[in-house]
């Protein structure tokens, strides 16, 4: 609070040298109203979050606490209403992890190098253009990314869809996320470090590789893992590109592969009439939330372990 001391009567200024909260009713009132409003806003924002977590956990926790859920796939699944086994989600968990991993392998190098270009080298029109394109890419709706890959892969080339197509669509979504966060991290690296390096006669590329990147490494890793978590839960492109199967498939490049969102999607239509389908849906939702949570925590952990000590 930057109140001018002159405005306050000398008698009041005497004991605190500033504001006396007890004496000005209107200020106290304003303060209290503001506090209540801010807390209310905070609580309202929390309601859906807690509600979602509560619903998913209360309905899905019992499913994912069984060993079968993690060890088996859905092979042998029967018609809804005539099958009493929930079975496992291993095929979908592996599928989600593999698709997200393949996405990261492609997206992270592209995104990090784009960010390096934008921060370290980019000047003028090209850099402005690239930056603008990254913004546009981050605004592309995820379903459009899926349609784009479908159009290129199936309609144009006439190839058979496989799980790798989903990864390609997700790359389009992951690149801008990781690129922006990496850019922010690189901008945080103090210029003095770069200048010190140049003063020792180190070339620019070596400065970037040996000084700038290691300094911002923890931030880049955290950003990348957040991107990973985001694409792991992404659903829209998978609805178009990923052909669900009830069997475990390790091969990204051939055959159908399940993912947690598609496992949910396949079972949702039967939820109303069939408890087993409902269990699968909530179990998969719970697993997905858990997976994203673990990856986020892993990101924090790696960020902490690799932080540069000042």
């Amino acid at each position, binding site marked *: 609070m930057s109140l001018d001391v002159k405005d306050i009567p000398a008698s009041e200024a005497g004991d605190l040298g500033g504001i006396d909260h007890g004496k000005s009713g209107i200020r106290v009132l304003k303060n209290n109203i503001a506090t209540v409003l801010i807390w209310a806003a905070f609580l309202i924002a929390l309601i859906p979050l807690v509600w979602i977590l509560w619903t998913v956990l209360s309905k899905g926790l019992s499913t994912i606490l069984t060993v079968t859920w*993690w*060890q*088996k*796939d*859905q*092979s*042998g*699944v*029967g*018609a*809804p*209403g*005539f*099958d009493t*086994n929930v*079975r*496992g989600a*291993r*095929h979908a968990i*592996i599928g989600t*992890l593999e698709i997200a*991993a393949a996405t990261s392998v492609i997206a992270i190098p592209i995104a990090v190098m784009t960010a390096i270009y934008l921060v370290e080298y980019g000047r003028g029109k090209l850099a402005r253009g690239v930056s603008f394109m990254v913004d546009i890419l981050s605004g592309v709706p995820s379903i459009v990314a899926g349609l784009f890959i479908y159009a290129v892969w*199936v*309609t144009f080339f*006439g190839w*058979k*869809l496989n799980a790798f197509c989903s990864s390609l669509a997700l790359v389009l979504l992951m690149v801008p996320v990781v690129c922006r966060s990496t850019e922010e991290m690189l901008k945080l690296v103090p210029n003095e470090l770069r200048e010190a390096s140049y003063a020792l006669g180190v070339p620019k590329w070596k400065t970037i590789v040996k000084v700038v990147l*290691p*300094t911002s*490494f923890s931030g880049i890793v955290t950003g990348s893992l957040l991107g990973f978590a985001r694409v792991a839960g992404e659903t829209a492109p998978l609805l178009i590109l990923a*052909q*669900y*199967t*009830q*069997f*475990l*498939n390790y091969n990204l490049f051939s*055959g*159908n592969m399940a993912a947690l969102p598609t496992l949910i999607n*396949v079972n949702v*239509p*039967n939820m*109303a*009439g*069939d408890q087993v389908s409902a269990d699968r849906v909530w179990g998969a939702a719970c697993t997905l939330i858990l997976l994203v949570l673990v990856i986020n925590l*892993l990101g924090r*952990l*790696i960020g902490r*372990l*690799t932080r*540069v*000590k000042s």
Partner: protein
Amino acid sequence: MKITRIGRASSVAVVAALALAACGSSSNNDSSSSAPAGGSGSGAAAGTATASGAGDCFSGSLNAAGSTAQQNAITQAISSYQSKCNGAKVSYNGTGSGAGITSFIAKQVDFAGSDSALSPDKGEPAKAKAACGSDALNLPMVTGPIAVAFNVKGVDKLNLTPDLIAKIFSGKITKWNDPEIAAANKGAKLPDTNISVFFRSDESGTTDNFTNYMNKTAPKIWTDEKSKKWTGKVGQGKSKTAGVATAVKATDGGIGYIEWGYAVQNKLNFASVNGVELTGASAGKAVEAAQVVGTGKDLSLKLDYTTKEPGAYPIILVTYEIVCSKYADATKGKNVKSFLSYMASPDFQKTLEGVGAAPLPAEIQSKVVDSINSIS
């Protein structure tokens, strides 16, 4: 700068991921592996009209998509086929008949499930032929009776005539206590509720068969030709069979056309037609009245909706498997043949009623087996 730590941390991550991926076995086969794998000699079932189902197992995967009307039946077939043949991985995605045929033509799936045969008007047989490199065959596989499901408070049983069905679905009758409905249901207490019609918003073979039925049996009232896309002017569209079923269940005064299996599964009431209740037997009688109009090994059926056969429930659809007569990949052809042989076998067909579908009549069934044996 502790770069060594980077390596350590990332190796932790890699190890964790590997550990997650490596533990446990994948499938549920443990319980079913006791089932004998059958004679694995190739061609054991070929040539005979009564293929013994899992005569020749295959190991590998098949990918199919299409009609939701046969989803329950084919899911059941996949599961019991797999219990006989451990390595056989067949996946079927219920994307709807239209999407199934599109995927088949785009060579995305090995065979498609559809509630209607490939339509020459749309040039589908030619496109499918181009995709296969050989003629595509329509093989009737599962009879799916279409139930007219309704939800009216206090009414469990409802009898409708073809005219009434057409009038309700075209919006010419809007109240449940309409005198015409009352005339067909003597003694029933019909409430003064508005009729809410629900139809399929996606392209569907169920819609195709249902509109065809109305057009054939009440041509003056339902004047539109059959169509996979609903052409009615009243009602609300819902996605997939499950969407229609859920909507009818949630709406007092709701009515919709859905596959029998879903009506049973969702515990919905469904109407009799001309006093004939919907059962596996009454639907089977209607299929017997159908004519094979496909040429050669193609077995497209022409259903006779106006059948006068006593005790026949006339609103049925026959779901087809659409296959290539000769697959470019011979192994693929053999796998498709093996799986479909099982699905067409009397052993499996007789279990269909349990999942809300009706078996094929014996005469058509033996033709289907014949056609399947010609696939290569």
